Structures are given as C-alpha cells and as structure tokens.
C-alpha cells in the first residue's frame, strides 16, 4: 500500500512507474484553492487512487463534483476540516466522510454514493437528491431535502441525528428522510413538507399540525415503515460508533410519518 503526500503528482507517477496500485493518498489542503484541489482529486481518480484523505480543508467547494467518469470509478474520500459549499454536488457514486461540520448545499443533485457528516450541516442539504445516502450526526438548517426525487429502485435516503429548521422536504417528490431528534430538543421547524407530492419523512418525536404544509398528512407507522426505519437506524448507528447508541432505545421513541395527501397537490390551482 503506497501512502503518498501532497507534492503534486510525483508519487502518483512514481507509483505507476513501478506498476503499483495506489491505495491511500493524503493531501494537505492548507492554502489550496478549490479548483486546484479538485484538479488533484480528479488526477488521482484517473490514476486509479481508491482512497484519499484531505486535511486542513477550509471552505474549498464542490469536493467530489469533478469525479465523473464514464467507467464509474469509485473513490473513498475522508475530509478533516470544514468543507465549503456544495460538497459532493452531482456526486456520481463516491463515498465521502467529513470529520467536522459541513456547510450549505451538501449533496446538491446527488446521483449515487454516500456522504457521512460527523457534525451538523447547513442549508439546502440534499437538494434534488436522486439517489445515494446521506447521514448527518447533528442537526441541519433550512430547506433540507428540497425536491428530493425517486424513480423505481433508485430511492435516496437522508438520516439526520438531530432536528431540522424550516422547509424540510419542500416540494419533495420521492425519497426517504428520517429525523431522529436524538438530542431531545423539540422539533421547531415550520413549513415541513410544504408542496410535498411524493416520498416520506419519518420523524422521531412530535410536531404540531400547524408546523406542516397543508399537503401533508401526519400518521402513525405501519409495518413497512418500521422495517425501513429499522434498517436505516442500524446504518446510522454503524456510521457513528462514537455516539454509542442503543438501537432499541432509539426505536422505542415515538415515530410519526409525514406523507403527501395526494400526488397532485396543485391539481385545482388552474382554470382550464
């Protein structure tokens, strides 16, 4: 296993010259601008790197976006620091773990892959997400899971350990959002699910019906819901071992389900 440090692409070339497969590469992102950092990530992907560790990340944007390849190469990226906006926008199947907080626009129009955030995330998380999974340990900001979509077996999943602010699931058209409320703070977000016409939100705790959009129905879980929650809570716990969560404790909480009343919430809006 070749460990290489940041000095340009020499270690990549050197390793290739020896026919070694490159496994883990470390990059110190101090003072490196967004484009250059993403240039390097792309070069590493093309050269066959499988795992990259980025240190001292501070505000660099679109990490993970440049990594489209028709051959669908996959990389594992670990980020130490605070990544900038639009982390993993248009993500095409890679895995990213953030050891710290994330900012706005995480997983913007993400297609496939996995993002894990050991901390909180900002606004517009998972905007137009269409596949893959995102796990956030703490809370999130406004407009999470906006216009999330699904089609047949492509169903995105978003699990949040804490709470969310206003406009969660706005215009949601598909996918699964689970809010675990593990910090035991009340869910104070408003306009949840406004414009929702597909997908489902599971909330551990309670919300008042004035907090949800008029298109949203609050109902208890059925067997299928419980299976889904069981599965994704397990995955959440696996990804955050430091929380030392007990699955039974988590599942004992009162879950409710927010789902759209109709696929056509705006059917009566127009005079034809």
């Amino acid at each position: 296993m070749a460990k290489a440090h940041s000095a340009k692409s020499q270690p990549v070339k050197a390793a290739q010259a020896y026919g070694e497969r490159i496994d883990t590469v470390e990059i110190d992102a101090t003072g490196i601008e967004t484009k250059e950092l993403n240039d390097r990530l792309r070069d590493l992907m093309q050269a066959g790197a499988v795992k990259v560790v980025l240190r001292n990340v501070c505000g660099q944007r679109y990490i993970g976006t440049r990594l489209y390849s028709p051959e669908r190469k996959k990389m594992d990226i670990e980020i130490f620091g605070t990544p900038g906006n639009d982390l993993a926008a248009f993500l095409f199947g890679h895995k990213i773990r953030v050891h710290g907080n994330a900012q706005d626009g995480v997983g913007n129009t993400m297609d496939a892959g996995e993002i894990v955030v050991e901390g909180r995330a900002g606004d517009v998380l998972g905007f137009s997400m269409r596949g893959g999974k995102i796990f956030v340990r703490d809370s999130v900001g406004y407009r999470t899971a906006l216009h999330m979509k699904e089609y047949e077996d492509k169903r995105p999943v978003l699990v949040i350990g804490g709470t969310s602010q206003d406009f969660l699931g706005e215009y949601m058209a598909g996918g699964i959002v689970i809010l675990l409320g593990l910090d035991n703070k009340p869910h104070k977000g408003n306009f949840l699910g406004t414009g929702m016409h597909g997908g489902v939100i599971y909330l551990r705790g309670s919300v008042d019906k004035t907090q949800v959009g008029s298109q949203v129905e609050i109902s208890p879980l059925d067997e299928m819901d419980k299976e889904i929650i069981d599965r994704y809570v397990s995955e959440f716990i696996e990804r955050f071992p430091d929380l030392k969560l007990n699955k039974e404790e988590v599942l004992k909480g009162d879950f409710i389900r927010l789902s759209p009343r109709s696929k056509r919430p705006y059917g009566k809006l127009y005079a034809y």
Partner: protein
Amino acid sequence: MKSFVFPEFQIIRDEEKCGQCRGCERQCAFGTHRYDPVQDRLISDEYKCAGCQRCVVFCPKDAIIVRPTPSFYRPNASWSREKLEDLKKQAETGGVILTGCGNDKPFRIYWDHIVLNASQVTNPSIDPLREPMELRTFLGSKPDLIDMKAKNGDVEIETKIGPNLMVETPILFSAMSYGAISYNAFRSLATAACKSGTFFNTGEGGLPKEMRDEFGKCAIVQVASGRFGIDAEYLNCAAAVEIKVGQGAKPGIGGHLPGEKVSPAVAATRMIPAGTDAISPAPHHDIYSIEDLSMLIYALKEATNYEKPISVKIAAVHNFAAIASGIVRAGADIIAIDGLRGGTGAAPKVIRDNVGIPIELAISSLDQRLRNEGIRNRASIIAAGGIRCSADVIKAIALGADAVYIGSAALIAMGCNLCQKCYTGKCNWGICTQDPRLSGRLNIEIASQRLSNLIHAWSHEISEMLGGMGINALESLRGNRDHLRGIGLYEWELEVLGIKGAGE
C-alpha cells in the same frame, strides 16, 4: 351548471361539400366533431373547439371553416371580450387562468419599426449567390487577447481559450422540454439541429437515454429549478449546459407539468413517479443571490471538467442588464435572454401578458451595458422571444446578439397554429401532447425536414440581406447598429435601442 362563457370559435360546415367521411371527427382530440348516424351528418360542439385548424387542413373536401366568433358584447375598449370572459371563468372555477404560447397582446413590436441598410455605390453589396457568405459563429467566452509564441515559423497559442460552441448559422432551437412537447417533436428538433449544424435545447425535461449517443453532441442540456433528469452522465454527454433561471413567458414563477402529461416515458426521463405533477419551483432553491448562481455555475463547470460552456437563461425584465452583467462576472459563458413574447406550454395568462420587457430593448441595453463595462467578450448573448422571420434574426444580431433561439417559430414549422391550448395535452398536430395517438401524427422525418428547410431558408435570406449591406461575415454585423434605423419610435426608444431615426 352552465358556463356563462361563449365559445371562442365558430365552425361553419358546407353541408353540400361535406361527404361525411368523419375525418374531422378522427382528427379532433378535443371531441368537437361528432357523427350523428340518425341525421347522417357531422355535428360540431363549438364550445370544445380550440381553433387549431387541424380539421380544416385535413378535410378532403375543404368543407370546414373555423374562425373566431364575432363578439356578442357591446364594444368596450376597456372591458374587452377576453377580459370579460376570463373573469367569468375565474368566477366559475376560482382558479388561475392558464394559457400557452407567447404573449399575444399589442405591445409595440420593435422589429417592425426597424429598417435595414443596403449598400450602394460607395460600399458595394456583395453577391450572395456566388461569393462566400459566412454565417458561422462561436458561442462562449473569449479572452481579451491571445498570447502567442512563434517558433520555427509555427505560431503556438499560449492563452487557453474556454470551450465554445460552433454553429453554422446563428439560429438555434429554443428550450422545449420533453414532457411539454411530444417525443416525436423533440426528436425532430434534435435531428434537424444535427443536420443543420446548429444546436437544440432539451429544456428541463432531460434527454432520454436512447438519444444521448446520437444527439448529445448537438444538445444544450438544461439544469432548471426542478433539476429533472440531471446526473453527471447527462451533463457530460451534451455540448453545453444551461442553467434556466427564468423564461420570458413567465418570469419569476415556476413551471407546472400536469400529471396527465407525465407518462411513464416522461417520468423515466425526469426521474419522478408517473402521473405525479412535475413541479418546477419558482426559484432555484439554492440560488438566492448572485454569488449562489456563481456557485452553481462553477459546480457545473467542475461536474463537466471545465469542458463545456455554461449558459444562463434569464427573462428580460426591469433592471435585467445589471443582473446579466453580474451573471457574466459570475462566470457564465453564454447568456440567453428571453423577452416578453417568449412562448411556453403552460403559464398563467396574467403573467405571460404582463411581465417582462420586449427582447429588442433587452438586447440593446445588455449589449451596451456589457460593452460599457468592458466585458462584452466574456459571454455570448443569445436572444429569444418572438423571433418570426429572418429579418428579426438580422436585426437581433445588429442590435448586439450573437445568435437567436427560435421556439414558437420551430413549432409553427412543424404544424403549430398557436391555438394556445398546449396545456391540455390534446395538441391535434402531435406537438404538445403525450398521447401516442396524437404524437404519432407527427412524422419525425418529415417534421425534421421541415425544420431544416426553415433554417436553410432563413439562412439564405440572411445571406441576402448581409450581402446587401456589403458584409460577408456575420461577425461584422454583430452590434453594428449603424446599419439600422428606426421608424415611428420615440426619442427614448431610439436611445435605448442605440439607433438613429430613419433619415438621420
């Protein structure tokens, strides 16, 4: 409950000519004509008629006339018939009045008040039939200057030039999404674009997978607020990516594709469940400020490895020159501006008719603004919104645009008559419908040939007019307002357009 609103169209059937072939019954998806076996004649329900003229064209005996019903109401300059009837419809339903196509109200059409120059004597015209007439143009960002190195007689260009689209003629097909128009219409546009050396725009409906290999290279794919059908593969198979911020027909509001039009195929391409409404929210929910737009532009550049020009489409509204200038500074390579008369498949009528400004004024003020700021080279301008003929194209270029998008014109070439009922999904011409019975009427080969013919004809007319002005390359006309004069315009209009009055 009987509606108080009268039918818009009157159907007159010449009973002597009519052979009761029931062709009109089959042609009309609105169910207007019905054969009555007892009386052995065709009966028409005028309330259903949309005035699309399909039955008229296809009647083998030319026995039908369809025309707007003469108004029954007392003439009233303020309470026009349309205002009266729309009001009644709203009283009956409590809903928003929907419509299709572009603004049909009598706002001034500046194209018709601008005249072109022709050369005589001092700078002779060029003969377009025999001399080369170059319409090729490049759309994208260009640097201010190029650094070059001469080595052994070879010149090496050191400046990196951003990605550009090369078009053989300055006419592109505007964004019309698959979902709003039928698969056949969509494919016809793609075919014609590839054949004629130009580009088509996928609109927000995405590009079906089976079309990507063949047509991707002529496609400008759109990233709209609903983000339908967008994945990295979609972005990378195309020639350019366009961020749709607004469109001329409905600036400031979102789009709405009713569940009826979301067939399984449309749903697969847009990645939403079949039968759901495809709602494009009003704003991009991640763009609430110019720096957010800059963020999305660069996110797309990253996602396409900086290999494709990124375009931003905005509607022409007040203050838009400042916004457009900001967009250029935010990194866009192409700016597409859509004026007041831009068309659509569905929009609230009140927005379509009242919001926005005419594209002619928009092009000139934008071009002027960018030149004042010294950044005109950084982005190309594509103008859209009611381009009706090749003269409009030439005038648009002379006012400052690099190219134009045609939407309504392309649909009219395929058979559309602007009946404004696109949102019903019952287009008898097979253009704006997902019903396979109807869309099957539009033959892809024939329709794409018609579109190619249109481009060919207009390109030739443009060549003629260029030659007449003594110009043989399109780049010499761009922004060359000296070749235009205005007639019947106010002082301020001449100023905004940047042209002199005829005779001056």
